[in-house]
């Protein structure tokens, strides 16, 4: 015999929906619109091979005779190309879809690498303490004092000169992820360390230690879940920064090659034609880049207000 239960077990989705975060999200139109735009851009770019009318990587579909057609709403457009074509005759709409996918992919992978490095180092520094801590934090200070962009520019410039542009272009994605990922680990390490220092003193950590759990288990299973909110906030801002860094590096010719353009390299190739009036090759990828970074930053702002973790200043 069981009594009839009128309330069903809440699903995970409804738990999130009814939580404080869910509530603050529903009450914030800016956050809703930002998330919607971000998801739209993300889904469209990752479905690029399905949506795009042309394949910008297939030389068979590119005809130099088609170069520099303006977008549809400008006189002299070719109806085949919705947003016009770039200097090589590629359909701009397809190229932007593929380019956004690359930019997002590099941004997210680089931040993933930052997070793995930074969180492990931060956990170890905070939990072990002593000399290890001061050494690691000193390294973080020094790393932070050098601007990421500067480190990335010099590293990529030297690798490009060393391997030659053929080989460099082939592995550009990995170089970009590696350099943006490694240069920014202190952001995570410092924040994680600060929260670990605060959490370490709490009773649940003591009780876990009394139960005989090893340091690894306490760090990963007990302390880390309680340090997640600052990590989330940093991650959004870091993805936005990584996308900007990637675009800047590609703009300088130290990132994605023109044959496989990200948003930055598209803008760069368009810049040469801006004086001859072909503004759309620069402007349209530029707008996509700004909108993408802006919505991520707005989401990050909302998340910071909603979770309100004590972040490191500066």
């Amino acid at each position, binding site marked *: 015999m069981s009594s009839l239960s009128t309330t069903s077990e809440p699903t995970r989705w409804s738990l999130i929906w009814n939580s404080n975060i869910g509530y603050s999200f529903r009450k914030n139109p800016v956050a809703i619109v930002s998330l919607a735009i971000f998801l739209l851009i993300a889904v469209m770019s990752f479905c690029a091979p399905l949506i795009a009318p042309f394949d910008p990587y297939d030389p068979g579909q590119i005809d130099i005779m088609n170069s520099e057609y303006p977008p549809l709403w400008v006189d002299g457009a070719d109806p085949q190309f919705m947003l016009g074509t770039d200097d090589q005759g590629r359909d701009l709409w397809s190229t932007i879809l593929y380019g956004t996918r690359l930019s997002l992919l590099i941004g997210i992978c680089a931040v993933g690498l930052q997070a793995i490095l930074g969180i492990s180092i931060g956990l170890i520094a905070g939990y072990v303490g002593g000399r290890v801590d001061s050494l690691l934090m000193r390294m973080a200070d020094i790393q932070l004092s050098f601007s990421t962009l500067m480190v990335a520019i010099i590293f990529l410039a030297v690798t490009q000169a060393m391997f030659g542009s053929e080989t460099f272009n082939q592995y550009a994605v990995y170089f970009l992820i590696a350099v943006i990922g490694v240069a920014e680990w202190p952001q995570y390490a410092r924040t994680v360390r600060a929260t670990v220092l605060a959490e370490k003193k709490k009773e649940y950590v003591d009780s876990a230690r009394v139960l005989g759990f090893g340091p690894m288990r306490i760090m990963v299973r007990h302390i880390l879940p309680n340090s997640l909110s600052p990590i989330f906030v940093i991650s959004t801002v870091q993805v936005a920064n990584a996308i900007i860094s990637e675009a*800047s590096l590609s703009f300088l010719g130290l990132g994605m090659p023109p044959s496989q353009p990200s948003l930055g390299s598209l803008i760069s190739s368009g810049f040469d034609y801006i004086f001859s009036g072909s503004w759309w090759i620069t402007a349209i990828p530029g707008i996509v880049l700004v909108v993408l970074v802006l919505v991520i930053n707005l989401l990050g702002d909302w998340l910071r207000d909603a979770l309100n973790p004590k972040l490191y200043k500066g």
Partner: protein
Amino acid sequence: MFAYLVKRVFQAIAVMFVISLIGFAIQDNLGDPLRELVGQSVSEEVRQELRDELGLNDSFVTQYLRFAGNALQGDLGTSYFFKEPALDVILKKLPATMELVFGATIIIIGLSIPVGVYTAIYPNTILSRLVMGISIIGISVPVFLTAILMIFVFSVEYGWFPSYGRGDLVHVFGPWETNFATVDGWMHIMLPSIALASIMLPLFVRLIRAEMMEVLQSEYVKYAKAKGIRPWRIYFVHALKNTLLPVITVGGVQIGTMVAYTILTETVFQWPGMGFMFLEAVNRVDTPLIVAYLIVVGFIFVVTNTIVDLIYGLVNPTVNLARMGA
């Protein structure tokens, strides 16, 4: 304090040592100095002889010591392209970059303090909300896009400002020629400085606003209000003084970042500074120039950071020097 100073200087030297090691490793592996000297048409025996003569067959440590010794005397090798000492080439380009950074810094300081203070005092007015909205857009626009947009609007469409180069310069002394002495020079430096400032401005406005809002909640500001001191005096004399400390620290770090952004700004505006030169050197695989740039920029970073840390230690009496030096 003295122990802290010594530790800080020692750390700076250690970082410079690492940078010089990296620089040397690049010089050792990138390009072939022999080919730059004699070309392809020399027999293998003569090559070996030359290698011995130039010391290219010595051990890594000997070669590094020679490199470091020369570097300490200001000899960073000779540029393959300019056929001049690399350091001289860079020092010739340095004033252009420094003037650009200077122009941007003036814009940042001149705008961020009043705007930051205003938005902190009246956080709910329409103007403040507008400023905060613009600032998040400002953070999201990469500096090269701002620069391109400004060129497109102000040079191509309206033709108000020139789009490249430095214009008429006036010689001051040594390699320093200034933009600030002629109207044409002012016109040329305007767009690049604004573009360079645009990336840092939102950051500083937000920082000053956040710090100021915190200070305005403090007891001493309330006490000053109760005492009847004029609001203007409270805001700009009492409160602002205490917000500037974190601003100095962040500002010091950002000077270094600004050097990186000059590469982007200089590329867009074809500004004949260090950054533009560096990218050209990379394209020409001009190894000595690349290495010299790395060392000069590394030096600028290390010096500014050390000075900022020391100022911070001096200005802030509450800072725990023993902990910072640990």
